[in-house]
């Protein structure tokens, strides 16, 4: 299929010269992108690159042909003012086009809901008007930005008829730290550390994406030992977050045995990560071209014993959850996102897989260690809270099996090599399947190999609209379990 693509094709974790990316006038570029999406491609990222004079902007689309294991890149010729909206026919472009409009004042003509994403209005995000449902029996519920627990800030605006949510609009931007802007002209001294905190609970995923981009720009790759360690750390991250969230879901339906057990077990997985690098979130494990922290055979053996014990405990705690009819009845048929909806809005990760979409970067676009070792993709058809919880529960098993297999035979340490410099005027793409889904980093370098543009797409950027859809027709009292079943990142979205 993708052979016929007019876009430039490249595998995950590679780069190509900027000039080799085909370009079209903006309206034709939108048409061609739409045609590619109609042929089965998926929008991984869509962003603007300002021309050097600043007045004109080029649009760039990064697409994934999952079935063909290839990515595709295209760009528009410099444009200013406006261009025809892609969102009208392909809703997965919705937030991307709003972002481009906000960052480059390039208006997508005909966009159905053009408003800010995260830009500041001084001391709060410039949210603009919310969508309102009119009617005598309609009431509006506003929640946030500061929430009732220990959780990041965001604003949720519900339009309800009694208990039933007719529409939910999610307004974010409160966590906006200027991550992308600061990358211009980089990498800087703090860049690697900032990449580890794009979303602090997905440190390994974002750090791996960044390191992979740097390696791809320099036409090299990390030592095998580092690739092995990154793959293991990525699964530790997945195990910790899946376990913690399943415990929190159990807590939200007042099923305390699993809630208590998983709260502690999540910490056990974080401590496995800490035994690698000292930090529970995996800081300092991933560095471009670097081998990473030393893992002796004894430490690998100890990790294997510890992870095996923790997995056994999680299995037991989750068995109680799945055995309980009271839990199933709370999870089933709540917060449904249909397969067609999930595909239309471009959902990724466990949430997409729980709506029956088979998409997993580790399998579709293997890079690094995943070229040699893979875990089976978990898919469940329901699209409800049950399905999302079920997918994550099964992923704990598959991820656990994967880690245990890898820990048995660590690869030999490679001889240290010189670190090559990033190529100039090149574009590199790295996708990593983090625990929430596809983390996408794209870097474009200037003539000196410094960042001209760096685009980060956290899986939450694709999936927040999924939560909004899941709430339609759902009781507002079910919002906590719907929200937790997605467990999306605010700071990863806000950047």
């Amino acid at each position, binding site marked *: 299929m993708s052979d016929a693509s007019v876009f430039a094709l490249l595998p995950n974790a590679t780069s190509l010269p900027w000039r080799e990316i085909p370009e079209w006038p903006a309206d034709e570029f939108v048409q061609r992108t739409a045609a590619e999406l109609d042929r089965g491609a998926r929008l991984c990222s869509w962003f603007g690159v300002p021309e050097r004079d600043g007045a004109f902007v080029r649009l760039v689309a990064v697409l994934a042909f999952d079935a063909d294991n290839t990515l595709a890149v295209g760009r528009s010729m410099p444009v200013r003012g406006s261009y025809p909206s892609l969102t009208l026919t392909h809703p997965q472009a919705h937030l991307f086009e709003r972002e481009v409009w906000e960052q480059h004042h390039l208006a997508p003509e005909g966009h159905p809901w053009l408003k800010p994403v995260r830009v500041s209005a001084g*001391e709060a995000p410039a949210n603009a008007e919310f969508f309102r449902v009119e009617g005598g029996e309609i009431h509006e519920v506003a929640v946030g*930005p500061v929430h009732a627990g220990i959780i990041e800030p965001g604003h949720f605006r519900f339009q309800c008829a009694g208990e039933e949510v007719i529409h939910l609009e999610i307004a974010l931007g409160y*966590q906006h730290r200027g991550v992308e802007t600061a990358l211009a002209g980089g990498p800087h001294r703090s860049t690697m550390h900032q990449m580890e905190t794009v979303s602090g609970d997905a440190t390994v995923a974002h750090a791996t994406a960044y390191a992979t981009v740097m390696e791809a720009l320099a036409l090299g790759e990390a030592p095998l030992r580092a690739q092995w360690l990154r793959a293991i750390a990525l699964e530790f991250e997945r195990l910790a977050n899946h376990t913690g969230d399943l415990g929190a879901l159990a807590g939200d339906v007042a099923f305390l045995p699993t809630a208590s057990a998983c*709260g502690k077990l*999540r910490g056990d997985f974080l*401590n496995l990560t800490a035994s690698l690098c*000292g930090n529970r979130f995996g800081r300092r494990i991933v560095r471009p071209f670097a081998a990473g922290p030393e893992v002796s055979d004894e430490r690998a053996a100890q990790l294997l014993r510890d992870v095996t014990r923790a997995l056994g405990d999680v299995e*037991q705690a989750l068995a109680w959850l799945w055995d309980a009819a009271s839990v199933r009845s709370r999870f089933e048929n709540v917060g449904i996102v249909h397969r067609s909806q999930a595909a239309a809005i471009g959902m990724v990760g466990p949430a997409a897989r729980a709506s029956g979409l088979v998409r997993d970067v580790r399998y579709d676009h293997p890079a690094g260690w995943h070229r040699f070792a893979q875990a089976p993709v978990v898919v469940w058809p329901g699209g409800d809270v049950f399905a999302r919880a079920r997918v994550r529960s099964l992923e704990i098993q598959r991820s656990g099996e994967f880690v245990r297999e890898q820990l048995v035979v660590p690869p030999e340490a490679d001889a240290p090599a010189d670190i090559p410099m990033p190529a100039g005027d090149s574009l590199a793409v790295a996708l990593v399947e983090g625990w929430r889904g596809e983390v996408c980093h794209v870097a474009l370098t200037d003539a000196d190999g410094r960042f001209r543009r760096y685009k980060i797409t956290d899986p939450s950027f694709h999936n927040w609209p999924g939560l909004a859809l899941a709430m339609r027709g759902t009781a507002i009292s079910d919002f906590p379990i719907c929200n937790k079943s997605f467990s999306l990142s605010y700071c990863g979205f806000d950047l």
Partner: protein
Amino acid sequence: MFVVDTLLHRLKRGCETMSYPDGPAPALPERHGGALRVEAERCVAGCADCVAACPTEAITRVSGHAVALDLGKCVFCSACIETCPSGAIQHTGDHRLAARTRTDLVLGGEAGKGLEELRLANALDETLRRLFGRSLRLRQVSAGGCAACEADTNVLGTIGWDLGRFGIQFVASPRHADGLLITGPVTRNMELALRKTWNAVPEPRIVIAVGACAISGGLFAGHPEVNQGADTQVPVDLYIPGCPPHPLTILDGLLRLLGRLDERRFPPRARTAHTV
């Protein structure tokens, strides 16, 4: 079936809450390193290698003096320790890091000003201790945090740590709170929400800043989209450094502030200057 299963499981596992602070503190991860110290006399004249290595400009050096290390900016990446030719900056392995003022977090520097180790927090004064010592309700505000400080604060509520046994609880409304626990550098976009939340907490109230971002802006200091920490917006009573601080460090800070640690009974672990 699960009723029997869970009961048997609980019997088998027993009490999983740690004995600390009525017993010794649990060990930090082997490669964690704990707090840092600056041995001023080891600082080689004319050397500024660590200044250039630090990602958050936590280290400065004025000619003629030892380096000054601000643990409020430090993300504990160990780059300075790895760079230092003379071992002037060292890990202490100590989990205790909380301090009452910003200057208490600055080590080394001009002779006679900065000390080699940080000055740990004193307890609240008698009036506040009588109010909050056995019951402290906190509202947590994440203001640009990356979710790591939030996660390791959240973990204190799990059965292993059981924060509730100290009468400390995170509440769902600022009206129910005695104070705020703030994470993140305070983004411009959270200024209004933070101020409103703080105003809604009845007086007397306390504020605790957790993590390098909330203390100084951390990794994002200098970005126009953020402030340089919580104390640019509200007065802060306790600073808990780290990126993120280990849960034990956060718990130590909370108990220290409330005057609930008896360190004569269980002195901190022997300090070893180990390298990571």
